[in-house]
């Protein structure tokens, strides 16, 4: 059986069912369905490994006319990643949201989000991607706004405006491409290539729209309040997965077109923006006094690394490009895991100390070491310290940088790594303080702590098994041949 449509259908159906269920049934129902959907995601991956690319022509019509779902290694890994992260965020949320007014809205929105993510991973149609992105954007905005206080509403509003502007820019690009090629299928785009100036301009429009949605510096302004102010599981999901969706589309676009002839200038603009993100995000994270805002800025910084992908694959030697691909994929996965873990851990810490401020963390290390451990483990991976997926990714990125001769990125990698280490340490340092001790800390439920820990340690374990997902990711991808 082809699992692809189920990846979208099942979350949609669950969303509807959850929407209709009474509040107290929503969490258990969601968890049950999440297990089921996770199994399907894994099954998809297995099938992709076994058979190669999977395709499903929706409504029975072939590509330019109908819409085709397609799963290669990248898609399958992203689906599994989504399942993994969402699963544990859901586990955390089940405990975290119990009895809160936000619980009612959270669960259906979570499922819509999952559906939107899966539809984006699977889609091969530019306009369908637009609808998917909009679905995802509105869901994410809704999730951010859930708590309904002034801060989160303002953050949601800002996020919504950014998302809308980004989508429109993307839509204009879609319009130009349709006008030029008369088709919206990615495969047709690949056939026609970039030779036409209109397509190039469309690409620029779409790229910047997506970049805005990915919150790349200097367009990141909406992200910290949104991710920092949202509910903990929401922050984790947004940082780990949602911003990756627009990046995923961008990467798909670039990899679909022939990288050899893509505009190097544009790639370099993206690379420079990425570098700026790494430095600025790291610096701002260091300056934060609120824990979750620090983590949010760390996302800004980490996104920057992912954008170094573009200059490294555009017009460079094949070895460098392959390395950059591997590096970015690994970075993407490990960041998703680590950042989700870190946000959950931060949420647990905030819950334990009852204050969002880093300065109030004193004594946490002694009384709630487990949450802190998760935070630290995630921090190790984020800072690119070994042994972790983050480190391996950084290593590959470094190799790619050296292989391509683009030395410019070296200082960025280093300063960025040090900055991220610095802000992680800032948090740890505060929690190590043994001053006038508070001995009253709330205890987060064990499920909450474990979901954070599992995600964080997964990114660490990734450091030892990096080769495995990288092999999967090559299936059906542009570097299927290997390096």
């Amino acid at each position: 059986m082809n699992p692809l449509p189920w990846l979208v259908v099942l979350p949609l159906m669950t969303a509807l069912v959850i929407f209709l269920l009474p509040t107290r049934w929503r969490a258990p129902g969601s968890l049950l369905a999440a297990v089921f959907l996770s199994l399907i995601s894994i099954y998809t991956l297995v099938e992709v490994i076994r058979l190669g690319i999977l395709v499903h022509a929706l409504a029975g019509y072939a590509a330019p006319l109908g819409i085709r779902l397609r799963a290669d290694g990248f898609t399958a890994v992203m689906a599994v990643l989504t399942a993994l992260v969402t699963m544990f965020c859901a586990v955390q949320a089940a405990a975290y949201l119990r009895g809160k007014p936000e619980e009612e809205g959270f669960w259906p929105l979570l499922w819509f989000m999952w559906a939107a993510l899966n539809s984006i991973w699977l889609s091969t149609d530019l306009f369908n991607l637009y609808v998917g992105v909009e679905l995802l954007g509105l869901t994410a905005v809704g999730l951010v706004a859930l708590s309904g206080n002034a801060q989160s509403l303002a953050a949601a509003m800002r996020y919504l405006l950014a998302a809308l502007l980004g989508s429109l820019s993307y839509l204009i690009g879609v319009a130009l491409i349709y006008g030029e090629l008369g088709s919206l299928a990615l495969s047709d785009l690949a056939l026609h290539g970039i030779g036409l100036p209109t397509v190039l301009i469309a690409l620029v429009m779409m790229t910047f729209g997506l970049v805005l949605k990915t919150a790349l510096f200097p367009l990141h302004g909406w992200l910290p309040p949104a991710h920092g102010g949202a509910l903990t599981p929401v922050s984790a999901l947004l940082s780990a997965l949602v911003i990756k969706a627009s990046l995923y589309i961008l990467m798909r676009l670039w990899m679909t077109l022939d990288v050899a002839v893509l505009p190097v200038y544009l790639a370099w603009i993206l690379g420079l923006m990425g570098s700026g993100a790494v430095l600025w995000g790291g610096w701002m994270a260091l300056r934060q006094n609120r824990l979750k805002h620090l983590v949010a800025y760390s996302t800004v910084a980490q996104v920057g690394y992912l954008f170094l992908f573009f200059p490294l694959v555009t017009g460079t030697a094949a070895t460098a490009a392959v390395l950059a691909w591997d590096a970015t994929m690994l970075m993407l996965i490990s960041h998703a895991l680590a950042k989700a873990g870190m946000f959950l851990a931060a949420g647990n810490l905030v819950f334990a100390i009852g204050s969002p401020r880093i300065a109030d963390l004193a004594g946490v290390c002694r009384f709630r070491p487990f949450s802190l451990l998760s935070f630290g483990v995630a921090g190790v991976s984020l800072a690119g310290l070994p042994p972790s997926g983050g480190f391996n990714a950084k290593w590959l990125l470094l190799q790619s940088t050296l292989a391509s001769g683009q030395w410019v990125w070296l200082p960025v990698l280093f300063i960025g790594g040090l900055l991220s280490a610095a802000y992680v340490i800032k948090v740890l340092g505060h929690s190590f303080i043994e001053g006038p001790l508070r001995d009253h800390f709330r205890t987060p439920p064990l499920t909450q702590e474990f979901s954070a820990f599992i995600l964080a340690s997964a990114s660490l374990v990734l450091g030892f098994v990096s080769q495995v997902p990288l092999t999967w990711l090559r299936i059906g991808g542009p570097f299927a041949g290997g390096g």
Partner: protein
Amino acid sequence: MNATMTAFGLVLAPILPLLLLLFWCVPALRPRVEVLTPWAAVPAVLLVLFGETGMRVELSWLLFGSALAMDTLTRVFLAFTALLWLGAGLYSQGMLVNDERAGSFRLAWLATMAGNFTLLLAVDVVTFYVGFALMTFAAYGLIIHSRDPEALFAGRVYLIMAILGEGLIIAGLLLAASRTAAPLAAMLADIPAAVMDAPYRDLIIACFFLGFGVKAGVPLVHMWLPLAHPAAPTPASAVLSGAMIKAGLFGWMATLPFGLVALPQWGLGVITTGFVAAFGGALIGVHQRKAKTVLAYSSISQMGLITAGIGAGLYQPALWPALAPALALYAFHHGLAKGALFLGVGVANQAAAHWRFGLWLALALPGLSLAGPMVSGAVAKVSLKIVLEAGIATPTWWRYLPLLLSLAAIGTTTLIARYLWLLSQSEPRAKISGIQWLGWGLLLAVSVVGLILLPWVPTISGIPPDPIYLPDLIWPVLVGLVLAVCASRFLRSWPVPEGDLIIVFPMAARGVWNFLQYVLLKVTHFFIWRRQIRHQRKSVEADTRLERSDVEYLLRRNAALVFALLLAVGLIASILNP
């Protein structure tokens, strides 16, 4: 005594003190060790008396492969050293009866003794250096035994000089050893030859001369001697002056390239230094007010003569085969005599009035021996003189050397006179016990007739104390006595401080050091990146101020504009893209 026993003795002599030292750490054994401490030198004495030369014990598992052996030269040195340790040890046993720091004294004593024996018996360089260092550092404990300010000052000066000396010695040893066949396990016997061929020959010689010279009281590095001897307890002074100083001499004799190459410049320099020490020591010594200080300067003076002999050896290699035993003899004689004299300080004024003169005479005996006419001293001096005269053929000034020796004896005589006079003036000390008498008596005896203990030394059989040398020996003594009497009548002593130059040095040195330290600190501070990590303020206002950034604010406020601008830039870039 068969070979096995010799081997056993070779090992036991240095090890026994160390074993006792270890046993001391066990509280239950402590009283036994206390009784045994003075007798720790007995194996060494027995070894000297009954051991066989040429026997070698290989301890290949130890360090880089150690070996112990005793040759004739070593035997002479070991003879007087062991006797000194034994005699002084016996003396100290009585002295320590009511001493609250007896334990620390004994530990230092044993360690110093072990070091001293080890360095004498060592065959390889490393073991030699082990012994030397052990002796050097442990002696500090002896010097500062009383803990009074003088002792502590003396100890500090001693330690600084000793460490400088150690540094020079290790440098010299390294430089020399690297030229031998097996640098890592170099034999002491190979060192002179290595020095001879070494590219840094003069540097090595300088290292050795000054490094061992610290112990031997060479001028300018002698300052610790007059400070340490009076400050240390009497038996400690005895071994410091008798044995430890000679270790320096032993070091020279073992390492410098005697008899291999003529080093006229070095020879001349060393001879000059020696005589400067001989006369300078005497000159300063007679102005001292403490008997032990006088003895210390006397030691400097005597060592000056020996240094001159060393210089002669450097100047004329051919003389060395004869000179070496002569110097050894001289060391033997001086060591024992000086030991007896030092212990005498404690013994003086002990006896009842009618015995006092006898005691005084007994004290004078080693003094006379030192000055020349007595048995041991006579032999030693005559031997030295004969050897020096044998080399007279060379430069003209050489022929004055024997004369200078005689003149030095005048100084020695005056020093002894001064010493005796000071003793007679001093207050009686605490009553001493029988074992102290025994110790002193032993040293007194061997210092007078000790040479008969050395039947195996060829020089002694070769050069009997010929009566023709008697006038030569006696006239300086007479002159010295006259001088001393005159001086005591007509001259007032100058207040030359103990340790002479050292009193001037620290002021200059401290100034220089402070300056250096200042400069160093400035330089280092310049390079150290010191940044005060700012403490985060706790107030909420500061909080938000910190968190916000103007740039971030502008970016967020104008996000749409920034987006549009970026888009424009991207579009222009893509249009212009070739």
